[in-house]
């Protein structure tokens, strides 16, 4: 389980996060949603340690991650898999090398074992046989799937996903969402997804946190979100005519 306690993050005078406390449970798709500039990605970066919170603490299974030094964090980091918004694949490496990169650094696996693991991960994301390609030869959806394959190569306990659907067509978005959800069940990972895609929210949102103006504004599940009276949340969720029409049918 991941827990945040009173996370505050300021950039100069700008207070982006204003004391966010939340729990993210294993085996569930925990979604952080909110409008642009609401602090979703900043919260995610504070949790994984890419930003240091100005105040507050982050706990990974009870261990205070915020107070740890770089080297103390390494064992926890080895259990983290992350899919970035732009996939963040290493351009100079092939797809297989990208997946094997953490294995090369942190395991004593033999070359054939690493290759087997890379092939397994690629198969798991339906990219069997694409290991020799380079990131520049892949479509946006394929890059996301390679990013997921790299994220799961070390069998992570914690999976973080930043805007998995950005720049993808609706069909590919659904495939990526399903993949994330399936992996969460399969590995019992504590999955935290930052998104503003309502299809993802309704499709895989087991536990949703809505951020508004840097504060936790609402918390619940995708079943509860359609029936809430929270005005700001309703404005966000039902902004499109399609969602408004869908709500009337519910």
């Amino acid at each position, binding site marked *: 389980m991941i827990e945040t306690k009173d996370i505050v993050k300021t950039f100069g005078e700008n207070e982006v996060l204003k004391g966010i406390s939340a729990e993210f449970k294993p085996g569930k798709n925990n979604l952080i949603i909110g409008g642009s500039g609401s602090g979703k990605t900043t919260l995610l970066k504070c949790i994984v340690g890419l930003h240091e919170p100005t105040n507050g603490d982050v706990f990974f299974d009870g261990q205070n991650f915020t107070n740890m030094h770089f080297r103390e964090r390494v064992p926890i980091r*080895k259990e983290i898999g992350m899919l970035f*918004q732009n996939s963040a*694949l290493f351009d100079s490496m092939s797809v297989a090398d990208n997946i094997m990169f953490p294995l090369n650094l942190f395991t004593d696996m033999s070359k054939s074992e690493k290759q087997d693991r890379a092939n397994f991960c690629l198969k798991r994301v339906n990219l069997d046989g694409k290991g020799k390609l380079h990131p520049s030869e892949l479509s946006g959806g394929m890059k996301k799937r390679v990013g997921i394959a790299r994220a799961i190569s070390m069998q992570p306990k914690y999976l973080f996903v930043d805007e998995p659907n950005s720049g993808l067509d609706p069909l590919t978005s659904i495939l990526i969402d399903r993949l994330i959800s399936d992996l969460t069940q399969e590995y019992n990972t504590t999955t935290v997804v930052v998104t503003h895609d309502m299809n993802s929210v309704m499709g895989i949102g087991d536990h949703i946190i809505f951020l508004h103006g840097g504060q936790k504004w609402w918390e619940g599940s995708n079943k509860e979100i359609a029936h809430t009276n929270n005005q700001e949340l309703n404005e966000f969720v039902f902004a499109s005519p399609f969602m408004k029409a869908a709500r009337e049918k519910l």
Partner: protein
Amino acid sequence: MFHSLGRYLLLLRLSFRKPEKFSVYWAEVMREMVSEGIGSLGIIVIISLFIGAVATIQTAFQLVSDFIPKTVVGGITRDSTILEFSPTICALVLAGRIGSSIASQIGTMRVTEQIDALEIMGVNAPGFLISPKIIAGVTMIPVLVVVSVILGLSGGYLACAASKEVSTADYLAGLTDGFNPLIVTVCAVKAIVFGFLINSICAYQGFYTSGGALEVGQAATRGVVYSCIMILFADLVISRVLL
């Protein structure tokens, strides 16, 4: 300025932390050595031959007199090539070739979140990205400078053979006359220091890039400009201290 200097020194300290796995870092060092060394050989060959030839022709032009032995041309070409032309001009050219590549490569990795990905995995990103480049720089740039010295002196020989103002025999005699081994030490020190400066300054500029393509370009430009200024400053300090 002090803020940047402090950040630069801290980045260097982070770069030389104990590697997560030596073999992976070693492979990176080898890759960088090939990229910086073999990749720069062509330009070094061209500029060194021309610099040596031009230095010989111009020295001969200035020293044509019955009172000055012709062998002096070889001696002056040798000293100026070893002391200044090969290390400094090569370093300035390499700052453009290698430095811009390092700054833009690391800068692009920063803006496309590849450095964040390394940090998330628990990799010491400065160590993984910067230390192999610095190690490759301080080993391969001296090698390139040695190549440059040999080719520069060869260029002088070819210029003598072509122009006939100074005979090749006089030129070769001049190369060995009054040779002071100290100039080789100075040349080696310069090459190592310049290799360090080019790689570390450009890596620093790339590592702290933020924004997008425009900022990556600006970081590369800054890296090259600052490297060139620091090369010239270090050149002055080393010459003053060692000669």
